[in-house]
């Protein structure tokens, strides 16, 4: 594996590792890791460092929805123009172009059901290119970003074995 792939594979799951530890663990020079990381941030290969949170446990109310959007592509710009219109709204978490029964998959986060519904009816549906929307509310998150959302697993191995 080349160094970039090694770094990315590791930090994708451990974004908090400091440079020194990262260099030790990957068996490469610390300065080289720092340079690669900086370069990859510059090139927008590394697009951000996020934290996976189970908001449900905090008591803070959040509502998440997946919205299936059918749109009319624009001459010369395809789906990009309408995607851009959609992703510029701060309430929008993610926008994907999808193959299959609809065109854009939009994920949204709001404080209440009403807030999300309002965004869809007032903002999303009124865009000229949008033909139809279908809003799916997320009831429970089981797994996100490859991580199972529940109590951390206990080590059930015997404490000392040969």
């Amino acid at each position, binding site marked *: 594996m080349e160094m970039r792939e090694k770094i990315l594979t590791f930090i994708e799951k451990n974004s908090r590792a400091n440079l020194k530890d990262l260099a030790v663990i990957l068996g490469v020079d610390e300065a080289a890791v720092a340079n690669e990381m900086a370069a990859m941030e510059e090139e927008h290969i590394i697009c951000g460092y996020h934290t996976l949170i189970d908001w449900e446990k905090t008591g803070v109310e959040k509502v998440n929805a997946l919205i299936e959007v059918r749109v009319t592509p624009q001459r010369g710009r395809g789906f990009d123009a309408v995607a851009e219109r959609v992703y510029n709204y701060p309430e929008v978490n993610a926008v994907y172009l999808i193959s299959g029964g609809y065109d854009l998959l939009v994920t949204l986060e709001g404080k209440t059901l009403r807030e999300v519904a309002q965004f869809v009816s007032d903002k999303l549906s009124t865009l000229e290119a949008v033909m139809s929307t279908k809003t799916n509310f997320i009831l429970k998150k089981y797994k996100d970003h490859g991580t199972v959302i529940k109590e951390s697993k206990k080590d059930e*191995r*015997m*404490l*000392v*074995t*040969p």
Partner: protein
Amino acid sequence: MRNPLSERIVGIQPSGIRKFFDIVSEMKDAISLGVGEPDFDTPWHIRDEGIYSLEKGRTFYTSNAGLKELRTEIANYLNRRLGITYDPLHEIMVTVGGSEAIDIAMRAMLDPGDEVLIPQPSFVAYEPCAILANGVPVVIDLKEENEFRLTAEELKAAITPKTKLLVMPFPNNPTGAVMEEKDLRAIAELVIEHDIFVLSDEIYSELTYLDSHVSIASLPGMQERTILINGFSKAYAMTGWRLGYACGPKMIIEQMLKIHQFAIMSAPTTSQYAAVEALRNGDEDVARMREEYNGRRRYLMHRFQEMGLKCFEPYGAFYVFPSIQEFGITSEEFANRLLSEEKVAVVPGTAFGACGEGFLRISYAYSLEQLKLALDRMEAFVTRLRGEA
């Protein structure tokens, strides 16, 4: 009442690990670095095959030697990874873990008085198994200055006219030592010259960090005098499935199979179906886990260096074996104090043979966070010990 017990069994010492386990179990919220099994779960697709085999009602015995399908996959695997060709029908048998294979190989090969050379520090079962098989264990003390590899000189010094079998426990538990091809060649030469046989326990063969593992069975003239033992526990994180295998000359496997047939019948069927999947589609999982272990290994070596703890760099298994000789206390004392004062459990080197005195086995089958926490505590302990001196 007459004494119901066999003198020979009573005479065998229980594993030193057991004693330490009892102490650790008493200690609340200790961090253990004492485990000899992977921290990963068995990859899901392998578990899924096990579940599927149960759903399909495959709950019968398999043939004594194991599913033919599995033996064929084992043959393919060994050919692909080690370049050795075994006949799946006559030269491979599936066992209940590598442990069973060690036991029955010795029972099939030893007569009373036959000497078994056992390099130590090593896995706790070889010596008792040799005794149970009426053999005479002869221990070879491996040395730190050789990175705990077996040298031709050490072997030569231990060979007598009664020597029948040499145990080759590499990659090694507890030291993490590996034998490279050049090291093995020197051993093979002596083995052939003195007409002895080899039990090569290669259960950690997928966990090497320098080069790919080389089996002594792949050297010229060695396949016919080697019982190669491997299994699924370490490479595929399948310890609880209890599945291993032995490969060797038909003549020996046939006799081992006889013991297996009467004592065991056949290895667990569910595990065998899961193992077929492991061998067919598990290479990527093995590589992923190896990469993770390697990162932890480098991290541990770095931390030892920082705290000035002497440790040769091990290139196999998931153990490091640092020296604590500078503190002038025994391994057991060190481990006991580390446990009571810092609540970190490590295994004294002496659990793996007397020559493990002055060393500790530290397992890195743990998450980096846990290793970090444990190493911080160990560093504090080491600093305090040095202050006492």
